[in-house]
Protein backbone atom coordinates (compact mmCIF):
# COMPACT_ATOMS: atom_id res chain seq x y z
CA UNK A 1 0.00 0.00 0.00
CA UNK A 2 2.60 2.51 1.10
CA UNK A 3 5.01 2.19 -1.85
CA UNK A 4 2.04 2.48 -4.17
CA UNK A 5 1.07 5.80 -2.54
CA UNK A 6 4.61 7.03 -2.91
CA UNK A 7 4.61 6.16 -6.60
CA UNK A 8 1.34 7.99 -7.07
CA UNK A 9 2.71 11.11 -5.39
CA UNK A 10 5.83 10.87 -7.55
CA UNK A 11 3.76 10.73 -10.74
CA UNK A 12 1.66 13.70 -9.69
CA UNK A 13 4.79 15.70 -8.81
CA UNK A 14 6.35 14.97 -12.16
CA UNK A 15 3.19 15.90 -13.98
CA UNK A 16 2.91 19.17 -12.06
CA UNK A 17 6.52 20.03 -12.82
CA UNK A 18 6.08 19.40 -16.52
CA UNK A 19 2.85 21.35 -16.57
CA UNK A 20 4.61 24.33 -14.95
CA UNK A 21 7.38 24.28 -17.53
CA UNK A 22 4.96 24.00 -20.44
CA UNK A 23 2.79 26.79 -19.12
CA UNK A 24 5.82 28.99 -18.55
CA UNK A 25 7.03 28.42 -22.08
CA UNK A 26 3.59 29.23 -23.48
CA UNK A 27 3.28 32.39 -21.37
CA UNK A 28 6.75 33.48 -22.44
CA UNK A 29 5.88 32.97 -26.07
CA UNK A 30 2.67 34.93 -25.70
CA UNK A 31 4.48 37.71 -23.86
CA UNK A 32 7.09 37.93 -26.62
CA UNK A 33 4.47 38.13 -29.35
CA UNK A 34 2.57 40.75 -27.36
CA UNK A 35 5.70 42.85 -26.74
CA UNK A 36 6.70 42.60 -30.38
CA UNK A 37 3.22 43.52 -31.56
CA UNK A 38 2.97 46.46 -29.15
CA UNK A 39 6.38 47.70 -30.20
CA UNK A 40 5.33 47.54 -33.87
CA UNK A 41 2.10 49.41 -33.17
CA UNK A 42 3.88 52.01 -31.04
CA UNK A 43 6.54 52.53 -33.69
CA UNK A 44 3.89 52.88 -36.39
CA UNK A 45 1.90 55.36 -34.33
CA UNK A 46 5.06 57.34 -33.78
CA UNK A 47 6.12 57.34 -37.45
CA UNK A 48 2.68 58.41 -38.61
CA UNK A 49 2.85 61.33 -36.20
CA UNK A 50 -0.27 60.32 -34.41
CA UNK A 51 0.68 61.87 -31.07
CA UNK A 52 1.90 65.40 -31.44
CA UNK A 53 3.18 66.39 -34.83
CA UNK A 54 1.21 68.14 -37.48
CA UNK A 55 -2.33 67.88 -36.21
CA UNK A 56 -1.82 70.72 -33.77
CA UNK A 57 -2.49 70.84 -30.11
CA UNK A 58 -6.22 70.25 -30.07
CA UNK A 59 -7.35 67.43 -32.39
CA UNK A 60 -10.86 67.22 -30.93
CA UNK A 61 -11.30 70.96 -31.30
CA UNK A 62 -10.28 70.71 -34.92
CA UNK A 63 -12.71 67.90 -35.58
CA UNK A 64 -15.48 69.97 -34.00
CA UNK A 65 -14.41 72.94 -36.07
CA UNK A 66 -14.39 70.82 -39.25
CA UNK A 67 -17.89 69.50 -38.57
CA UNK A 68 -18.99 73.05 -37.89
CA UNK A 69 -17.78 74.38 -41.22
CA UNK A 70 -19.04 71.32 -43.13
CA UNK A 71 -22.64 71.72 -41.99
CA UNK A 72 -24.35 74.35 -44.12
CA UNK A 73 -26.37 77.18 -42.48
CA UNK A 74 -29.81 76.05 -43.54
CA UNK A 75 -32.60 78.34 -42.39
CA UNK A 76 -35.97 76.72 -41.82
CA UNK A 77 -37.90 79.68 -43.21
CA UNK A 78 -36.22 79.82 -46.62
CA UNK A 79 -35.33 76.17 -47.07
CA UNK A 80 -37.22 75.75 -50.35
CA UNK A 81 -36.29 79.16 -51.77
CA UNK A 82 -34.20 79.53 -54.92
CA UNK A 83 -30.44 79.49 -55.28
CA UNK A 84 -29.89 83.15 -54.63
CA UNK A 85 -31.38 82.95 -51.15
CA UNK A 86 -28.77 82.18 -48.51
CA UNK A 87 -29.78 79.29 -46.26
CA UNK A 88 -31.91 77.43 -48.83
CA UNK A 89 -31.31 73.88 -50.01
CA UNK A 90 -30.84 75.17 -53.53
CA UNK A 91 -28.04 77.46 -52.43
CA UNK A 92 -26.34 74.58 -50.66
CA UNK A 93 -26.50 72.36 -53.76
CA UNK A 94 -25.82 75.43 -55.89
CA UNK A 95 -24.32 73.73 -58.94
CA UNK A 96 -26.62 70.74 -59.16
CA UNK A 97 -26.79 70.42 -63.00
CA UNK A 98 -22.99 70.25 -63.26
CA UNK A 99 -22.78 67.79 -60.41
CA UNK A 100 -25.45 65.55 -61.85
CA UNK A 101 -23.69 65.46 -65.20
CA UNK A 102 -20.40 64.67 -63.43
CA UNK A 103 -22.10 61.92 -61.45
CA UNK A 104 -23.39 60.50 -64.74
CA UNK A 105 -19.85 60.68 -66.10
CA UNK A 106 -18.69 58.78 -63.00
CA UNK A 107 -21.27 56.06 -63.68
CA UNK A 108 -20.23 55.93 -67.33
CA UNK A 109 -16.58 55.55 -66.37
CA UNK A 110 -17.48 52.73 -63.99
CA UNK A 111 -19.70 50.90 -66.51
CA UNK A 112 -17.33 51.15 -69.47
CA UNK A 113 -14.33 50.22 -67.30
CA UNK A 114 -16.19 47.27 -65.82
CA UNK A 115 -17.23 46.04 -69.28
CA UNK A 116 -13.68 46.21 -70.60
CA UNK A 117 -12.43 44.70 -67.34
CA UNK A 118 -14.83 41.77 -67.71
CA UNK A 119 -13.75 41.30 -71.32
CA UNK A 120 -10.05 41.41 -70.44
CA UNK A 121 -10.52 39.34 -67.31
CA UNK A 122 -12.28 36.64 -69.34
CA UNK A 123 -9.40 36.25 -71.76
CA UNK A 124 -6.82 36.48 -69.00
CA UNK A 125 -8.68 33.85 -66.99
CA UNK A 126 -8.55 31.37 -69.88
CA UNK A 127 -4.77 31.70 -69.96
CA UNK A 128 -4.53 31.67 -66.17
CA UNK A 129 -6.60 28.56 -65.42
CA UNK A 130 -4.66 25.37 -65.00
CA UNK A 131 -7.24 23.24 -66.82
CA UNK A 132 -7.56 25.46 -69.93
CA UNK A 133 -4.21 27.20 -70.35
CA UNK A 134 -2.42 26.27 -73.58
CA UNK A 135 0.87 25.80 -71.72
CA UNK A 136 2.19 25.83 -68.12
CA UNK A 137 4.54 28.70 -68.96
CA UNK A 138 1.69 30.90 -70.21
CA UNK A 139 -0.33 29.92 -67.14
CA UNK A 140 2.49 30.96 -64.82
CA UNK A 141 3.26 34.20 -66.68
CA UNK A 142 -0.38 35.30 -66.78
CA UNK A 143 -0.84 34.62 -63.07
CA UNK A 144 2.25 36.65 -62.13
CA UNK A 145 1.28 39.52 -64.44
CA UNK A 146 -2.19 39.72 -62.93
CA UNK A 147 -0.62 39.68 -59.46
CA UNK A 148 1.67 42.60 -60.25
CA UNK A 149 -1.21 44.64 -61.71
CA UNK A 150 -3.28 43.92 -58.60
CA UNK A 151 -0.56 45.34 -56.35
CA UNK A 152 -0.71 48.71 -58.14
CA UNK A 153 -3.48 50.97 -56.78
CA UNK A 154 -5.74 52.31 -59.55
CA UNK A 155 -5.06 55.92 -58.55
CA UNK A 156 -1.32 55.55 -59.07
CA UNK A 157 -1.97 54.04 -62.49
CA UNK A 158 -4.44 56.86 -63.19
CA UNK A 159 -1.83 59.44 -62.21
CA UNK A 160 0.58 58.13 -64.85
CA UNK A 161 -2.18 57.76 -67.44
CA UNK A 162 -3.42 61.32 -66.87
CA UNK A 163 0.09 62.47 -67.68
CA UNK A 164 -0.08 60.50 -70.94
CA UNK A 165 -3.70 60.91 -72.05
CA UNK A 166 -4.41 64.32 -70.57
CA UNK A 167 -7.11 65.36 -68.11
CA UNK A 168 -10.45 63.63 -68.81
CA UNK A 169 -12.35 60.42 -68.21
CA UNK A 170 -10.31 58.21 -70.58
CA UNK A 171 -7.29 57.64 -68.26
CA UNK A 172 -9.72 56.86 -65.45
CA UNK A 173 -11.48 54.24 -67.57
CA UNK A 174 -8.19 52.60 -68.51
CA UNK A 175 -6.91 52.59 -64.92
CA UNK A 176 -10.08 51.03 -63.49
CA UNK A 177 -10.39 48.59 -66.40
CA UNK A 178 -6.85 47.35 -65.74
CA UNK A 179 -7.51 46.78 -62.06
CA UNK A 180 -10.85 45.13 -62.81
CA UNK A 181 -9.24 42.88 -65.39
CA UNK A 182 -6.58 41.76 -62.93
CA UNK A 183 -8.96 40.98 -60.09
CA UNK A 184 -11.69 39.43 -62.26
CA UNK A 185 -9.05 37.47 -64.16
CA UNK A 186 -8.13 35.80 -60.89
CA UNK A 187 -11.72 35.20 -59.76
CA UNK A 188 -12.78 33.94 -63.20
CA UNK A 189 -9.84 31.57 -63.43
CA UNK A 190 -10.86 30.11 -60.08
CA UNK A 191 -14.39 29.61 -61.43
CA UNK A 192 -12.95 27.97 -64.56
CA UNK A 193 -10.83 25.62 -62.51
CA UNK A 194 -13.87 24.60 -60.46
CA UNK A 195 -15.86 23.79 -63.62
CA UNK A 196 -16.89 20.22 -64.36
CA UNK A 197 -14.49 18.91 -67.01
CA UNK A 198 -16.77 16.15 -68.33
CA UNK A 199 -18.64 18.34 -70.84
CA UNK A 200 -15.26 19.70 -71.98
CA UNK A 201 -14.03 16.17 -72.55
CA UNK A 202 -17.16 15.43 -74.57
CA UNK A 203 -16.52 18.40 -76.87
CA UNK A 204 -12.92 17.23 -77.24
CA UNK A 205 -14.15 13.73 -78.08
CA UNK A 206 -16.38 14.97 -80.93
CA UNK A 207 -13.32 16.68 -82.45
CA UNK A 208 -14.11 20.22 -81.24
CA UNK A 209 -11.31 22.79 -81.20
CA UNK A 210 -9.98 24.46 -78.03
CA UNK A 211 -12.36 27.35 -78.76
CA UNK A 212 -15.30 24.97 -79.00
CA UNK A 213 -14.28 23.28 -75.76
CA UNK A 214 -14.26 26.63 -73.97
CA UNK A 215 -17.46 27.87 -75.64
CA UNK A 216 -19.60 24.76 -75.15
CA UNK A 217 -17.88 22.98 -72.28
CA UNK A 218 -16.79 25.72 -69.86
CA UNK A 219 -18.70 28.93 -70.59
CA UNK A 220 -22.25 27.68 -69.97
CA UNK A 221 -21.15 26.54 -66.52
CA UNK A 222 -19.29 29.65 -65.43
CA UNK A 223 -21.30 32.46 -67.05
CA UNK A 224 -23.58 33.04 -64.00
CA UNK A 225 -20.51 33.35 -61.77
CA UNK A 226 -18.92 35.75 -64.26
CA UNK A 227 -22.02 37.95 -64.24
CA UNK A 228 -22.36 38.14 -60.48
CA UNK A 229 -18.65 38.83 -59.92
CA UNK A 230 -18.86 41.50 -62.62
CA UNK A 231 -21.80 43.23 -60.94
CA UNK A 232 -20.08 43.19 -57.55
CA UNK A 233 -17.07 44.74 -59.21
CA UNK A 234 -19.27 47.43 -60.79
CA UNK A 235 -20.36 48.54 -57.30
CA UNK A 236 -16.73 48.85 -56.20
CA UNK A 237 -15.82 50.66 -59.41
CA UNK A 238 -18.45 53.38 -58.94
CA UNK A 239 -16.74 54.31 -55.66
CA UNK A 240 -13.32 54.16 -57.29
CA UNK A 241 -14.48 56.31 -60.22
CA UNK A 242 -15.80 58.93 -57.79
CA UNK A 243 -12.29 59.32 -56.35
CA UNK A 244 -10.44 59.38 -59.68
CA UNK A 245 -11.32 62.97 -60.51
CA UNK A 246 -9.00 64.09 -57.72
CA UNK A 247 -6.04 63.24 -59.97
CA UNK A 248 -7.80 64.62 -63.05
CA UNK A 249 -9.24 61.40 -64.41
CA UNK A 250 -12.84 62.55 -64.84
CA UNK A 251 -16.03 62.28 -62.86
CA UNK A 252 -17.31 63.90 -59.69
CA UNK A 253 -13.88 63.79 -58.04
CA UNK A 254 -12.91 66.95 -59.91
CA UNK A 255 -15.58 68.85 -57.99
CA UNK A 256 -14.45 67.29 -54.70
CA UNK A 257 -10.97 68.52 -55.38
CA UNK A 258 -12.23 71.97 -56.38
CA UNK A 259 -14.39 72.28 -53.26
CA UNK A 260 -11.34 71.61 -51.11
CA UNK A 261 -9.19 74.08 -53.03
CA UNK A 262 -11.79 76.83 -52.57
CA UNK A 263 -12.39 75.73 -48.93
CA UNK A 264 -16.09 75.16 -49.63
CA UNK A 265 -16.50 72.51 -46.98
CA UNK A 266 -20.27 72.60 -47.05
CA UNK A 267 -20.09 71.91 -50.79
CA UNK A 268 -17.80 68.96 -50.06
CA UNK A 269 -20.44 67.66 -47.68
CA UNK A 270 -23.13 68.11 -50.35
CA UNK A 271 -21.01 66.17 -52.86
CA UNK A 272 -20.40 63.46 -50.29
CA UNK A 273 -24.17 63.08 -49.87
CA UNK A 274 -24.59 62.85 -53.65
CA UNK A 275 -21.88 60.20 -53.93
CA UNK A 276 -23.40 58.16 -51.12
CA UNK A 277 -26.80 58.46 -52.81
CA UNK A 278 -25.31 57.25 -56.09
CA UNK A 279 -23.65 54.31 -54.37
CA UNK A 280 -26.94 53.32 -52.71
CA UNK A 281 -28.69 53.54 -56.07
CA UNK A 282 -26.12 51.38 -57.87
CA UNK A 283 -26.18 48.95 -54.96
CA UNK A 284 -29.95 48.55 -55.23
CA UNK A 285 -29.93 48.15 -59.02
CA UNK A 286 -27.10 45.64 -58.93
CA UNK A 287 -28.78 43.69 -56.15
CA UNK A 288 -32.02 43.52 -58.13
CA UNK A 289 -30.16 42.30 -61.22
CA UNK A 290 -28.24 39.72 -59.20
CA UNK A 291 -31.43 38.41 -57.65
CA UNK A 292 -32.96 38.21 -61.08
CA UNK A 293 -29.94 36.19 -62.29
CA UNK A 294 -30.26 33.84 -59.33
CA UNK A 295 -34.02 33.68 -59.90
CA UNK A 296 -33.39 32.61 -63.48
CA UNK A 297 -31.10 29.94 -62.09
CA UNK A 298 -33.40 28.34 -59.58
CA UNK A 299 -35.95 26.60 -61.83
CA UNK A 300 -33.15 24.79 -63.64
Amino acid sequence: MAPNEALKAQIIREFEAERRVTLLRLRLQQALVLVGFSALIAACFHVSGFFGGSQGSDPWGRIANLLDIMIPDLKAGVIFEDRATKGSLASWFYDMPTWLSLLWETVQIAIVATLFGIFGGFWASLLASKNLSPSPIIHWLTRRTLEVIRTLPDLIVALILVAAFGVGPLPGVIAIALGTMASLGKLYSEANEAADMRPVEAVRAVGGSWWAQVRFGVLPQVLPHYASYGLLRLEINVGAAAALGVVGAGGIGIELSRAITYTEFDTYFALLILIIGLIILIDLVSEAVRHRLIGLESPA
Partner: protein
Amino acid sequence: MTRVASLTVPPLIAAQEMEAARQIAPHLIDTPFAVQLRRFVLWVGLSALFIALCIGVDMTPAAFARGLTKLADFMRGMFPPNAAGGEVRILQALAATFAMAVTGTFLGVLGALPLGLLGAKTFVANPVLHFLIRRSFDVFRAIPALVWALILIVAFGLGPFGGVIALALTDIPRLGKLYAEAIENSDPRPQEGIRATGGQRRAAIRFGLLPEVLPVMASQSLYMLESNFRNAAILGIVGAGGIGFELEERIRIFAFDQVAWIVIAYVLCVMALDYVSEKIRSKLVHG
Protein backbone atom coordinates in the same frame (compact mmCIF):
# COMPACT_ATOMS: atom_id res chain seq x y z
CA MET B 1 -5.64 8.91 -94.66
CA THR B 2 -8.26 8.85 -97.39
CA ARG B 3 -10.99 7.45 -95.15
CA VAL B 4 -10.49 10.02 -92.44
CA ALA B 5 -10.29 12.92 -94.84
CA SER B 6 -13.49 11.89 -96.60
CA LEU B 7 -15.47 13.08 -93.60
CA THR B 8 -14.90 16.75 -94.34
CA VAL B 9 -17.78 16.64 -96.79
CA PRO B 10 -20.74 15.21 -94.93
CA PRO B 11 -23.54 13.75 -96.97
CA LEU B 12 -25.99 16.57 -97.55
CA ILE B 13 -29.37 16.28 -95.99
CA ALA B 14 -32.00 15.57 -98.64
CA ALA B 15 -34.92 17.91 -99.29
CA GLN B 16 -37.41 15.36 -98.10
CA GLU B 17 -35.51 14.91 -94.83
CA MET B 18 -35.60 18.68 -94.36
CA GLU B 19 -39.35 18.44 -94.79
CA ALA B 20 -39.55 15.65 -92.23
CA ALA B 21 -37.64 17.73 -89.68
CA ARG B 22 -39.90 20.70 -90.48
CA GLN B 23 -42.88 18.52 -89.67
CA ILE B 24 -41.44 17.66 -86.26
CA ALA B 25 -40.30 21.09 -85.12
CA PRO B 26 -40.96 23.87 -87.65
CA HIS B 27 -39.88 26.69 -85.31
CA LEU B 28 -36.43 25.15 -84.89
CA ILE B 29 -35.74 24.87 -88.62
CA ASP B 30 -37.01 28.25 -89.85
CA THR B 31 -36.51 30.91 -87.21
CA PRO B 32 -39.70 33.02 -87.13
CA PHE B 33 -39.33 36.57 -88.43
CA ALA B 34 -40.43 38.04 -85.10
CA VAL B 35 -37.63 36.23 -83.27
CA GLN B 36 -35.08 37.32 -85.85
CA LEU B 37 -36.29 40.92 -85.59
CA ARG B 38 -36.14 40.86 -81.80
CA ARG B 39 -32.60 39.46 -81.89
CA PHE B 40 -31.53 42.11 -84.41
CA VAL B 41 -33.05 44.99 -82.44
CA LEU B 42 -31.46 43.73 -79.23
CA TRP B 43 -28.00 43.48 -80.75
CA VAL B 44 -28.20 46.84 -82.51
CA GLY B 45 -29.60 48.49 -79.38
CA LEU B 46 -26.94 47.11 -77.07
CA SER B 47 -24.14 47.95 -79.48
CA ALA B 48 -25.45 51.51 -79.86
CA LEU B 49 -25.65 51.91 -76.09
CA PHE B 50 -22.10 50.62 -75.67
CA ILE B 51 -20.75 52.94 -78.36
CA ALA B 52 -22.61 55.89 -76.81
CA LEU B 53 -21.06 55.11 -73.41
CA CYS B 54 -17.61 54.85 -74.95
CA ILE B 55 -17.99 58.21 -76.67
CA GLY B 56 -19.26 59.62 -73.38
CA VAL B 57 -15.92 58.82 -71.74
CA ASP B 58 -13.86 60.18 -74.68
CA MET B 59 -12.91 56.71 -75.77
CA THR B 60 -12.06 57.50 -79.37
CA PRO B 61 -9.35 55.94 -81.50
CA ALA B 62 -7.67 59.32 -81.93
CA ALA B 63 -7.46 59.93 -78.18
CA PHE B 64 -6.14 56.42 -77.72
CA ALA B 65 -3.46 56.83 -80.34
CA ARG B 66 -2.30 60.12 -78.86
CA GLY B 67 -2.15 58.76 -75.33
CA LEU B 68 -0.46 55.51 -76.28
CA THR B 69 2.30 57.35 -78.14
CA LYS B 70 3.05 59.37 -75.03
CA LEU B 71 2.77 56.31 -72.85
CA ALA B 72 5.34 54.57 -75.04
CA ASP B 73 7.66 57.53 -74.48
CA PHE B 74 7.16 57.20 -70.73
CA MET B 75 7.90 53.50 -70.90
CA ARG B 76 11.12 54.13 -72.77
CA GLY B 77 12.04 56.69 -70.10
CA MET B 78 11.56 54.06 -67.41
CA PHE B 79 14.63 52.08 -68.47
CA PRO B 80 16.91 51.69 -66.74
CA PRO B 81 15.16 52.29 -63.39
CA ASN B 82 17.18 54.70 -61.33
CA ALA B 83 16.72 56.09 -57.84
CA ALA B 84 18.92 59.13 -58.53
CA GLY B 85 20.51 58.90 -55.10
CA GLY B 86 17.16 58.87 -53.32
CA GLU B 87 17.23 55.26 -52.16
CA VAL B 88 17.21 56.03 -48.44
CA ARG B 89 14.50 58.65 -48.82
CA ILE B 90 12.33 56.27 -50.84
CA LEU B 91 12.75 53.42 -48.38
CA GLN B 92 11.90 55.78 -45.53
CA ALA B 93 8.78 56.82 -47.41
CA LEU B 94 7.84 53.15 -47.86
CA ALA B 95 8.30 52.62 -44.12
CA ALA B 96 6.12 55.66 -43.40
CA THR B 97 3.41 54.30 -45.71
CA PHE B 98 3.59 50.95 -43.96
CA ALA B 99 3.36 52.68 -40.56
CA MET B 100 0.32 54.60 -41.78
CA ALA B 101 -1.32 51.37 -42.92
CA VAL B 102 -0.65 49.61 -39.60
CA THR B 103 -1.92 52.55 -37.52
CA GLY B 104 -5.00 53.00 -39.68
CA THR B 105 -5.82 49.29 -39.55
CA PHE B 106 -5.32 49.22 -35.79
CA LEU B 107 -7.73 52.12 -35.25
CA GLY B 108 -10.14 50.58 -37.75
CA VAL B 109 -10.12 47.32 -35.80
CA LEU B 110 -10.81 49.18 -32.56
CA GLY B 111 -13.74 50.99 -34.16
CA ALA B 112 -15.09 47.95 -35.99
CA LEU B 113 -15.16 45.62 -32.98
CA PRO B 114 -18.17 47.15 -31.18
CA LEU B 115 -19.96 47.95 -34.44
CA GLY B 116 -19.39 44.44 -35.76
CA LEU B 117 -20.90 42.99 -32.59
CA LEU B 118 -23.90 45.28 -32.91
CA GLY B 119 -24.30 44.30 -36.55
CA ALA B 120 -24.46 40.58 -35.82
CA LYS B 121 -27.94 39.12 -35.90
CA THR B 122 -27.05 36.55 -33.28
CA PHE B 123 -25.87 39.23 -30.88
CA VAL B 124 -28.42 42.02 -31.31
CA ALA B 125 -31.94 40.70 -31.52
CA ASN B 126 -33.54 43.98 -32.60
CA PRO B 127 -34.04 43.59 -36.36
CA VAL B 128 -34.36 47.33 -37.03
CA LEU B 129 -31.04 48.14 -35.38
CA HIS B 130 -29.37 45.21 -37.10
CA PHE B 131 -30.74 46.25 -40.49
CA LEU B 132 -29.70 49.89 -40.06
CA ILE B 133 -26.16 49.03 -39.00
CA ARG B 134 -25.62 46.48 -41.75
CA ARG B 135 -27.09 48.76 -44.41
CA SER B 136 -24.86 51.64 -43.37
CA PHE B 137 -21.85 49.29 -43.55
CA ASP B 138 -22.83 48.53 -47.15
CA VAL B 139 -23.11 52.20 -48.05
CA PHE B 140 -19.96 53.50 -46.37
CA ARG B 141 -17.94 50.50 -47.55
CA ALA B 142 -18.03 51.87 -51.07
CA ILE B 143 -16.52 55.27 -50.20
CA PRO B 144 -12.83 55.18 -51.11
CA ALA B 145 -10.20 56.25 -48.55
CA LEU B 146 -9.19 59.11 -50.81
CA VAL B 147 -12.54 60.84 -50.41
CA TRP B 148 -12.14 60.83 -46.64
CA ALA B 149 -8.48 61.79 -46.82
CA LEU B 150 -9.13 64.81 -49.02
CA ILE B 151 -11.12 66.61 -46.35
CA LEU B 152 -9.36 65.21 -43.28
CA ILE B 153 -6.00 66.41 -44.48
CA VAL B 154 -7.39 69.89 -44.82
CA ALA B 155 -8.78 69.62 -41.31
CA PHE B 156 -5.64 68.22 -39.71
CA GLY B 157 -2.99 69.71 -41.92
CA LEU B 158 -0.58 68.02 -44.30
CA GLY B 159 0.95 64.83 -42.94
CA PRO B 160 0.05 61.28 -42.17
CA PHE B 161 -2.43 61.99 -39.36
CA GLY B 162 -5.38 62.75 -41.63
CA GLY B 163 -4.42 59.78 -43.79
CA VAL B 164 -4.46 57.45 -40.80
CA ILE B 165 -7.94 58.62 -39.79
CA ALA B 166 -9.11 58.25 -43.40
CA LEU B 167 -7.85 54.66 -43.50
CA ALA B 168 -9.57 53.90 -40.20
CA LEU B 169 -12.83 55.41 -41.46
CA THR B 170 -12.59 53.27 -44.61
CA ASP B 171 -11.87 50.14 -42.61
CA ILE B 172 -14.61 50.43 -40.01
CA PRO B 173 -17.56 49.58 -42.30
CA ARG B 174 -15.57 46.93 -44.21
CA LEU B 175 -14.26 45.20 -41.11
CA GLY B 176 -17.56 45.73 -39.30
CA LYS B 177 -19.37 43.79 -41.98
CA LEU B 178 -16.77 41.02 -42.00
CA TYR B 179 -16.78 40.79 -38.18
CA ALA B 180 -20.56 40.70 -38.04
CA GLU B 181 -20.64 37.90 -40.59
CA ALA B 182 -17.94 35.98 -38.73
CA ILE B 183 -19.93 36.23 -35.51
CA GLU B 184 -23.15 35.19 -37.24
CA ASN B 185 -21.48 32.24 -38.94
CA SER B 186 -19.78 30.99 -35.78
CA ASP B 187 -20.92 27.70 -34.37
CA PRO B 188 -23.56 28.38 -31.64
CA ARG B 189 -23.06 25.01 -29.93
CA PRO B 190 -20.01 25.88 -27.77
CA GLN B 191 -21.92 28.89 -26.40
CA GLU B 192 -25.00 26.78 -25.75
CA GLY B 193 -22.84 24.26 -23.96
CA ILE B 194 -21.48 26.91 -21.60
CA ARG B 195 -24.95 28.35 -20.96
CA ALA B 196 -26.16 24.81 -20.31
CA THR B 197 -23.56 24.27 -17.59
CA GLY B 198 -24.94 27.38 -15.89
CA GLY B 199 -22.44 29.90 -17.24
CA GLN B 200 -23.32 33.57 -17.61
CA ARG B 201 -23.70 35.27 -20.99
CA ARG B 202 -20.33 36.90 -20.36
CA ALA B 203 -18.72 33.50 -19.84
CA ALA B 204 -20.42 32.16 -22.94
CA ILE B 205 -18.93 34.96 -25.00
CA ARG B 206 -15.47 34.64 -23.46
CA PHE B 207 -15.14 30.85 -23.73
CA GLY B 208 -17.70 29.97 -26.41
CA LEU B 209 -17.68 32.78 -28.96
CA LEU B 210 -14.22 34.35 -28.77
CA PRO B 211 -12.14 31.21 -29.41
CA GLU B 212 -14.35 30.60 -32.46
CA VAL B 213 -14.25 34.05 -34.05
CA LEU B 214 -10.97 35.61 -32.92
CA PRO B 215 -8.75 33.76 -35.42
CA VAL B 216 -11.18 34.57 -38.23
CA MET B 217 -11.32 38.21 -37.23
CA ALA B 218 -7.55 38.43 -36.88
CA SER B 219 -7.19 36.97 -40.33
CA GLN B 220 -9.66 39.49 -41.76
CA SER B 221 -7.81 42.33 -40.05
CA LEU B 222 -4.55 41.19 -41.63
CA TYR B 223 -6.27 41.10 -44.99
CA MET B 224 -7.38 44.67 -44.37
CA LEU B 225 -3.78 45.58 -43.61
CA GLU B 226 -2.77 44.26 -47.03
CA SER B 227 -5.44 46.39 -48.65
CA ASN B 228 -4.50 49.41 -46.53
CA PHE B 229 -0.88 49.25 -47.63
CA ARG B 230 -2.15 49.87 -51.16
CA ASN B 231 -4.59 52.54 -49.97
CA ALA B 232 -1.95 54.31 -47.89
CA ALA B 233 0.20 54.63 -50.99
CA ILE B 234 -2.41 56.67 -52.81
CA LEU B 235 -3.10 58.99 -49.87
CA GLY B 236 0.29 60.54 -50.44
CA ILE B 237 -1.18 62.06 -53.59
CA VAL B 238 -3.44 64.32 -51.52
CA GLY B 239 -0.78 65.23 -48.97
CA ALA B 240 -0.49 62.41 -46.46
CA GLY B 241 3.19 61.92 -47.34
CA GLY B 242 4.82 58.54 -47.77
CA ILE B 243 5.48 56.73 -51.01
CA GLY B 244 2.50 58.25 -52.84
CA PHE B 245 3.96 61.72 -52.39
CA GLU B 246 7.37 60.64 -53.68
CA LEU B 247 5.73 58.99 -56.66
CA GLU B 248 3.51 61.94 -57.54
CA GLU B 249 6.40 64.38 -57.33
CA ARG B 250 8.37 62.36 -59.88
CA ILE B 251 5.45 61.81 -62.21
CA ARG B 252 4.85 65.57 -62.28
CA ILE B 253 8.43 66.21 -63.43
CA PHE B 254 8.34 63.23 -65.87
CA ALA B 255 11.27 61.48 -64.12
CA PHE B 256 10.08 58.08 -65.20
CA ASP B 257 13.30 56.23 -64.45
CA GLN B 258 12.78 57.15 -60.80
CA VAL B 259 9.07 56.33 -61.04
CA ALA B 260 10.01 52.85 -62.27
CA TRP B 261 12.45 52.40 -59.40
CA ILE B 262 9.83 53.39 -56.84
CA VAL B 263 7.11 51.24 -58.43
CA ILE B 264 9.39 48.19 -58.46
CA ALA B 265 10.39 48.73 -54.81
CA TYR B 266 6.76 49.24 -53.89
CA VAL B 267 5.50 46.16 -55.75
CA LEU B 268 8.18 44.03 -54.06
CA CYS B 269 7.16 45.38 -50.64
CA VAL B 270 3.46 44.71 -51.30
CA MET B 271 4.23 41.18 -52.44
CA ALA B 272 6.41 40.57 -49.39
CA LEU B 273 3.70 41.87 -47.06
CA ASP B 274 1.04 39.78 -48.83
CA TYR B 275 3.23 36.72 -48.57
CA VAL B 276 3.93 37.11 -44.85
CA SER B 277 0.33 38.03 -44.10
CA GLU B 278 -0.98 35.06 -46.07
CA LYS B 279 1.33 32.73 -44.13
CA ILE B 280 0.10 34.10 -40.80
CA ARG B 281 -3.51 34.02 -41.94
CA SER B 282 -3.43 30.39 -43.02
CA LYS B 283 -1.77 29.56 -39.69
CA LEU B 284 -4.48 31.46 -37.81
CA VAL B 285 -7.36 29.83 -39.62
CA HIS B 286 -6.03 26.31 -39.95
CA GLY B 287 -4.20 26.20 -36.59
